[in-house]
C-alpha cells in the first residue's frame, strides 16, 4: 500500500476537444507508464468505438509514478466522460478525486462544458489547477484564456499554467503543480473499509470489474465484500491498479484508486456511486451521493429482419452486463413487430448502444423516434410513460409533466440574438446571462428536455457559425400541454411514428413527418393518404399518387435473362418491405423517417 501522503488523485476536466486525451498521453509519456512502441494516440480510450468517435465513454483510472525532489508519488489520473449524457458518472469520478486540472483551449477560451465541469468540481470541493492548453497554436490567445480562467476560478493569473499537451511544453511544471496544490487523500486507515465505485467495466472472462477509490480501511483479494446499496455480497477475486495495464496488489489502502474484480457477473450489481464495504466488518454509513441511474431518453429498437428478435434479446442481455445505465423491456408494434422499448441516459448513449448492438452482435436495427419519459398524473397517481402509444387519451388525466433541464450556452455575443430566439422557440425561459468577456456571453436557460434532444445542438451550431457550446443538467419536471400526434397511412395508424409533442408544435411535427414520408413511401397501386392526427383531428395530409407505370416497355428474345434478373432484384426489394394495412413500406423509409439529428458532443 502507498502512503496516502504520497498519493494525488485528480481528474482532467475540459470542454470537448480542448485536449484532455492528448494531455493524458503526455502524462503517460513523462511517467514512462507505457513503453514507447505501445504508445498510440488517446491511449486511455480503449474501446474501438471511443477511438473512432474521438470521445471517452468509460472513465478510466491510471496510476502514474512520478518523482519530484527525490520523492516518488503515485498520481492517480481519473479520466471522466466528456458528454452531458454522463454527468452523474462525471460527478462520481470527481468524488474520487481531491483535485482537478481544468483545461482550456487557448484558441477557444472558456466553453459551456468548461463552466459545467468547473461547477461540478467546485461542488465536489476539489483543488482546481487551471491550465491553458494549446499555447503552440498560431491562433492561440493565451492572455485572454488566462484572464478568463482567472476570473472563473478566482485564482491569480500567475497561478494559471500554460502548456502544450501536443509538444509537451509546460507539462512537467503541471505535474509539479499537481503534487503541490492537490491535497493528499485522508481517511481512517483502521476503520471498516469504504470504497466508492466510480465506474465499472465488464470483462467477458472475469465478470464485473469495479473502479474504486478507497476512502477508509483497505480492500484485499479474497475478501467477502458487500455493496451497500444493492446489498449484494460477493467474493473479491483480485484488487490492483491500472498502470495502465492491470497490476494486481495485495491490498488497496486509504486514498488509493484502483480496481476490484468483484466476482459478480452483472454490472447492475456493482453500480456507479455505490459503496463497497466488508461483509464481516460493515461500515455504518455508505459514502454520500448514490443515485439509481435514470434513463432520460426512450426509444424502441426493432430488428430489421423479424427473425432477429431472439438474437436481439440475447444481445441486449449481454450488453446490459456492461452498461448499468441502459434498461429495456419487450414491446410490440403493429408496424415493426416485436422489439424492445429501451431507456438511455441521452441521445449519445442511445447511439452508442445501438452501434454496439449492430457492430458487436451483427444486428441490423430500426430505432423509433426517441422521446423523453412523461409523467401522467391522474387521481393523485403518477405514472411514467415511456412510449407515445401508452399516452392516455386527452381528458382521462389531470396533467402531464415533462422533464426540464438547465442549459448552459456560451456564444460569441454577435450571435446572442439568434441563440435567444432559438431558446425562446424551444419553449425556454432565460435564467441568467453574463458576459465572460466583452465578446462572449454565458446564458443559462430552463428548457424542456424534449426540445433539446433532437436538433437543438445542430441549430445552435448553425446559428452561431459553429461557435456556441452547450451543456445541460437535469432540473426536475414541469407541467406541460402535450398531445400525441399519430401518423396514418391509408387510414391505418402507424404506431412507430406516433410522438408526444407540445400542443403548439403538434401540427408542425405532423406536417414534417407527413412530408418526409411522402418522399419515402413508394407509389402503390392506389393513392396512399398520409395523415397526421391529434385524436380524431387531421392536422396534415399528403398523398402518394397511385403509380401508373411499372412495366418493361420491350421484352423480346434476347431480353429474357436480363429482365428476369431485374425482376428478381425488384422481388428481393419487395420482400424487405413491411406491410402497414394495405401499404408496402420499405425498411429504408422507417429508418429514414425516424432518423434524428444529433445532439451535442458529436
Amino acid at each position, binding site marked *: 500500500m502507498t502512503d496516502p501522503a504520497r498519493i494525488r488523485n485528480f481528474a482532467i476536466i475540459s470542454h470537448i476537444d480542448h485536449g484532455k486525451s492528448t494531455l493524458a498521453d503526455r502524462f503517460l509519456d513523462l511517467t514512462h507508464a507505457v513503453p514507447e512502441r505501445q504508445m498510440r494516440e488517446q491511449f486511455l480510450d480503449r474501446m474501438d468505438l471511443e477511438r473512432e468517435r474521438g470521445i471517452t465513454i468509460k472513465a478510466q483510472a491510471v496510476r502514474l509514478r512520478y518523482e519530484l525532489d527525490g520523492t516518488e508519488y503515485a498520481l492517480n489520473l481519473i479520466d471522466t466522460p466528456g458528454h452531458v449524457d454522463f454527468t452523474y458518472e462525471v460527478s462520481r469520478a470527481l468524488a474520487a478525486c481531491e483535485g482537478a486540472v481544468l483545461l482550456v483551449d487557448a484558441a477557444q477560451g472558456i466553453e459551456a462544458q468548461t463552466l459545467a465541469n468547473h461547477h461540478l468540481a467546485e461542488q465536489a470541493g476539489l483543488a482546481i489547477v487551471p491550465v491553458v492548453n494549446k499555447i503552440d497554436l498560431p491562433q492561440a490567445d493565451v492572455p485572454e484564456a488566462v484572464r478568463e480562467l482567472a476570473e472563473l476560478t478566482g485564482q491569480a493569473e500567475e497561478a494559471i499554467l500554460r502548456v502544450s499537451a501536443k509538444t509537451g511544453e509546460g507539462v512537467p511544471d503541471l505535474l509539479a503543480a499537481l503534487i503541490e496544490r492537490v491535497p493528499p487523500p485522508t481517511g481512517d486507515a483502521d476503520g471498516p473499509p469504504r470504497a466508492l465505485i466510480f465506474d465499472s467495466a465488464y470483462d467477458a472472462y472475469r465478470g464485473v470489474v469495479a473502479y474504486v477509490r478507497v476512502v477508509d480501511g483497505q480492500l484485499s483479494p479474497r475478501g467477502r465484500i458487500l455493496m451497500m446499496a444493492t446489498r449484494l455480497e460477493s467474493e473479491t477475486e483480485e484488487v490492483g491498479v491500472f498502470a495502465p495495464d492491470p497490476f494486481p496488489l495485495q491490498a488497496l489502502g486509504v486514498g488509493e484508486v484502483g480496481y476490484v474484480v468483484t466476482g459478480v457477473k452483472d454490472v447492475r450489481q456493482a453500480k456507479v456511486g455505490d459503496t463497497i464495504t466488508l461483509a464481516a466488518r460493515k461500515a455504518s454509513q455508505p459514502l454520500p451521493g448514490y443515485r439509481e441511474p435514470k434513463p432520460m431518453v426512450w426509444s424502441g429498437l426493432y430488428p430489421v429482419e423479424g427473425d432477429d428478435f431472439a438474437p436481439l434479446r440475447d444481445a441486449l442481455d449481454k450488453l446490459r452486463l456492461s452498461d448499468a445505465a441502459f434498461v429495456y423491456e419487450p414491446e410490440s408494434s403493429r408496424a415493426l413487430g416485436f422489439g424492445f422499448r429501451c431507456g438511455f441516459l441521452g441521445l449519445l448513449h442511445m447511439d452508442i448502444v445501438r452501434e454496439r448492438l449492430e457492430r458487436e452482435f451483427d444486428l441490423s436495427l430500426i430505432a423509433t423516434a426517441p422521446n423523453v419519459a412523461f409523467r401522467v398524473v391522474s387521481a393523485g397517481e403518477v405514472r411514467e410513460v415511456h412510449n407515445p402509444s401508452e399516452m392516455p387519451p386527452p381528458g382521462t388525466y389531470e396533467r402531464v409533466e415533462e422533464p426540464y433541464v438547465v442549459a448552459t450556452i456560451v456564444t460569441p455575443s454577435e450571435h446572442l440574438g439568434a441563440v435567444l430566439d432559438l431558446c425562446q422557440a424551444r419553449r425556454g425561459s432565460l435564467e441568467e446571462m453574463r458576459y465572460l468577456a466583452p465578446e462572449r456571453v454565458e446564458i443559462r436557460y430552463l428548457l424542456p428536455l424534449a426540445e433539446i434532444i433532437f436538433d437543438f445542438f445542430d441549430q445552435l451550431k448553425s446559428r452561431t457559425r459553429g461557435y456556441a457550446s452547450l451543456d445541460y443538467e437535469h432540473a426536475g419536471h414541469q407541467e406541460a400541454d402535450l398531445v400525441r400526434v399519430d401518423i396514418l397511412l391509408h387510414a391505418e395508424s402507424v404506431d412507430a411514428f406516433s410522438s408526444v409533442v407540445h400542443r403548439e408544435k403538434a401540427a408542425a411535427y405532423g406536417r414534417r413527418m407527413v412530408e418526409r414520408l411522402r418522399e419515402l413511401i413508394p407509389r402503390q*397501386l*392506389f393513392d396512399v393518404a398520409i395523415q397526421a392526427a391529434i385524436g380524431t383531428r387531421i392536422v396534415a395530409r399528403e398523398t402518394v*399518387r397511385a*403509380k*401508373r*407505370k*411499372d*412495366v*418493361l*416497355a*420491350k*421484352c*423480346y*428474345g*434476347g431480353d*429474357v*435473362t436480363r*429482365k*428476369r434478373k431485374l*425482376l*428478381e432484384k*425488384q*422481388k428481393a426489394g*419487395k*420482400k424487405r418491405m413491411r406491410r402497414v394495412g394495405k401499404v408496402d413500406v420499405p425498411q429504408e423509409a422507417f429508418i429514414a423517417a425516424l432518423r434524428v439529428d444529433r445532439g451535442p458532443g458529436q
Partner: protein
Amino acid sequence: MRPSAASADAGLYVHVPFCLTRCGYCDFNAYAGLSHLGPAYADALRREARLHAGEWAGVRFVSIYLGGGTPTTLAPEAIAALIEAFRGHFDVAPGAEVTCEANPDTVDRAYLERLRAAGITRLSMGVQSFDPAVLASLERIHSADSARRAFGDARASGFDDVNLDFIYGARGETLASWRGTLDEAVAIEPDHLSCYALTVEPGTPLRHKVASGRIPAPDPDLQADLYEAACERLAAGGYEHYEVSNWAQPGHECLHNLGYWEGRPYLGLGAGAHSFHHGRRWWNVRLPQRYLDQLGAGRLPIEGEERPDPAEAELERVFLSVRLARGVPESWVPADVARAYLSGGLARRRAGRFALTDRGMLLANDLVLALEARDC
C-alpha cells in the same frame, strides 16, 4: 393464310448488327461504320445455320425475323440468299411469317420490291415519330416525310403486313404532339403498330445524359398519359391491343414475337443473338469481328448459356405471359391479388382467364411481383 403456332413451333431470329448511325437511346447490339462487313457477315450467318441444322432437325419454324441493327444495310440479294439457306437447313413452314426490320432511309421502292421477291412477307419500319422535334431529340436521321414515303413504297411493293415502330415520351414530346403522330399513323393504315415508352437503358448515351443531369429522365406519369392516348386512339382505329406495347389489325399479330411471350423455342443467329430450346438459354458473342472469327474457325460462336431453375423458369413464364391481353389462367392468380386488380379496374376475367386491362398492362411488373410473393 399463316399457320397458327403450336407450343413446340419455333422462331428463327437473325441479327444484323449494322447501322448507319447509332441512336442515343438504343442499347441493342449494333455498330455504325461496319456495314462493309455485310457480305462476310451474311456468309457467316449461313455457316452458323448449317452448324445448328442437326440439332434443330424435326423442329418446325413458323417464323423468321431479321432484326438489328438495320438488316436493310444488307443487299437484297444477300437477304434472298439467307432466306433460301434457312429454308434449306431448317423445316420452315410453308406460309411462315418472314419479317424484316427496315429503316425508312435505307429502303426505296426498288429495294423493297426485291425484298418482297426474296420471300420477306412482313416489314417492320422504325418510324418512331411523325414530329420532327421528337425525331431530332431521338437522334433519328430520317424525316417524317421519308417515313411516309417508305410506307407508301412498301404498300406499292406488295407488302400487306407492315408494322410501324414508335417511341413515346422522348424529350420534347407532349400529349398533343403524340396525338398528332398517332393520328398520322392511323391515317396511313399500317397493319400493326408497336409503341414503346422511351426507356433509359444502362450504358447508353441517353443514360449518361440523364445521369449527369443534362436532360431530365422521362416522366412516368406523362408516359402513362401518352400510353393511354395510344390505347384510345388505336382502339378507335380498329387495332387490337394484344401485348403491352403492340397493337394489330385482327390477324396481323406478330407470330414471331408472340413466340417469346408464349415461351415457344427460338434459335438466334448472328452476333449477340439469344436462343431458347428445351429449357436452355444461350447467347452468341456480341462483337461482329469475334462472331466472324469463330465461324471462320468452324465453331459455334456461343458466349454463354444458362438453364433457369424451376423457380426462375416460373418467373419467366409469369412475366412473359402477363404481357399478353389474353392473360393467364385464372388459377395462377390468388383470390386476394385478383380482387385488388379487378376492383381497381386493372384486370378483368374472361373465359377462365385473368387478363390485364390497358391500364393494368402498364403495371405488369407489379402483378408479377404480387404473384411471385405468393410462392415464398
